[in-house]
């Protein structure tokens, strides 16, 4: 009943945390000191390293949350729901950071805090959708139903992201042309800058992984505590019946 040996904080979690902090430090150092200033944007390019890496991870996290939700619908394993919540919370954090970073970045470069640019609009909608997931989760008591409903919403959120992106992109866009063309058009970024960006992406991914691991651990303990309490309440009901 009390803390089993497996409940002790595993060593690899501390290693992961140390790696994440080291990655963050390395990313910040290379971005702020090593990177040369950009031809067009000058020193402002340093914001890009933090902003783009955080933005990529926010979408990755939303994808992980939706896929974990699908696995929960398919197998009904509580672990999948715990993973889904952990990823959705991380996605919310990284999404909020993306919006803050995007506003910081667009004020000096585009001379406005908010542009109805496709990517910024998409991120804002994603954050709104993720907030919706947590609002609904808070209203449902039954863990099974809560997991199902939040999985369903996350699947619809995932399906809506490309549509939101397309619509916002074609509606009006102010974003500077994509430097990395994912469709295979080649890389126009300076190789050193690209390496620094990728280092920052790795750092953000490590932080994401670390937060996920901590949150999954908490989620599992939460689930176990809930189960234990339910079992105790069942026992008590049994006793009452017996006394009668």
């Amino acid at each position, binding site marked *: 009943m009390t803390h089993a040996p497996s409940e002790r904080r595993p060593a690899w979690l501390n290693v992961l945390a140390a790696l994440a902090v080291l990655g963050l430090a390395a990313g910040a150092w290379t971005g702020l000191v090593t990177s040369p200033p950009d031809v067009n944007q000058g020193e402002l390019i340093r914001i890009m390293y933090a902003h783009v890496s955080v933005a990529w991870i926010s979408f990755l996290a939303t994808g992980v949350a939706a896929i974990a939700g699908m696995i929960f619908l398919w197998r009904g394993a509580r672990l999948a729901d715990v993973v889904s919540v952990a990823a959705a919370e991380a996605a919310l954090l990284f999404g909020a950071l993306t919006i803050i970073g995007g506003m910081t970045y667009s004020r000096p470069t585009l001379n406005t805090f908010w542009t109805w640019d496709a990517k910024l609009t998409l991120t804002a909608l994603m954050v709104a959708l993720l907030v919706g997931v947590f609002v609904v989760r808070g209203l449902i008591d039954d863990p099974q139903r809560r997991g199902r409903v939040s999985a369903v919403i996350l699947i*619809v959120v995932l399906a809506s992201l490309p549509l939101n992106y397309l*619509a*916002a992109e074609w509606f009006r866009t102010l974003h500077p042309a994509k430097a990395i063309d994912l469709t295979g058009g080649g890389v126009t970024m300076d190789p050193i800058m690209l390496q620094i960006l990728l280092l920052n992406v790795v750092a953000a991914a490590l932080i994401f992984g670390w937060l996920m691991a901590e949150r999954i651990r908490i989620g599992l303990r939460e689930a176990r505590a809930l189960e234990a309490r339910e079992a105790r309440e069942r026992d008590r009901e049994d006793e009452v019946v017996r006394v009668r």
Partner: protein
Amino acid sequence: MTDLKALLAIAGKDFRSEARSRAATVATVFFSSVTLVILAFALGRDAELMRGAMPGALWVALAFSGVISAAQSWQGDLQEGALDQLLTLPFPRAALFLGKLLANWLSMTLLGALLLPVAVAFFGADVAAAAVPTLLVTIALGTLGFAVIATFYAALTANLQARESLLPVLMFPVVVPILLAAVRATEAAVGSGDIALARSWIELLAGFDLVYLVVTSAIFHVVVEE
């Protein structure tokens, strides 16, 4: 074939109960007209601005009243355990969803067709006769996408607290692409009447509708599982 019959029976049931109570019809018709009036007042007296704002105003009014009718469409089923009875019948859950969707979609399309001349008159927009079919197709496809998401989310939130305020908060970010494409198609069709541009937005709208329809129909059975 029997699934299709079940679907039509569900839609017919919703239409009959609406024909008897007329609660949703009265609410949505008046609410959407009032929304148009408020928007017209809020935009002021600049005739040029009003004319340009007509497509947006039309879709705002349709979206707001669409939320109301979608939220109401499941309320009747939740009373007296009617939904539980429906779920015991041997047809796929998707047929239940598509039946409710059909009823919601048709009533929203009718409302849109009714609201279009009102919005044109209120906002002083010019509509060429040749653009009317394009506008009606835009309304049909825009309300389809909206009704898909609205019906789905209304089922999801039907037995939650504060569902009236929760439903628009949850569904509006999802219907943004539908509304954007519908507004742009309407914009292209009124005024100068660039039908080719409107058609490209309509094609995009149809694609969005299809994606949402497939995704929601595929996972709807999870929503009503008890």
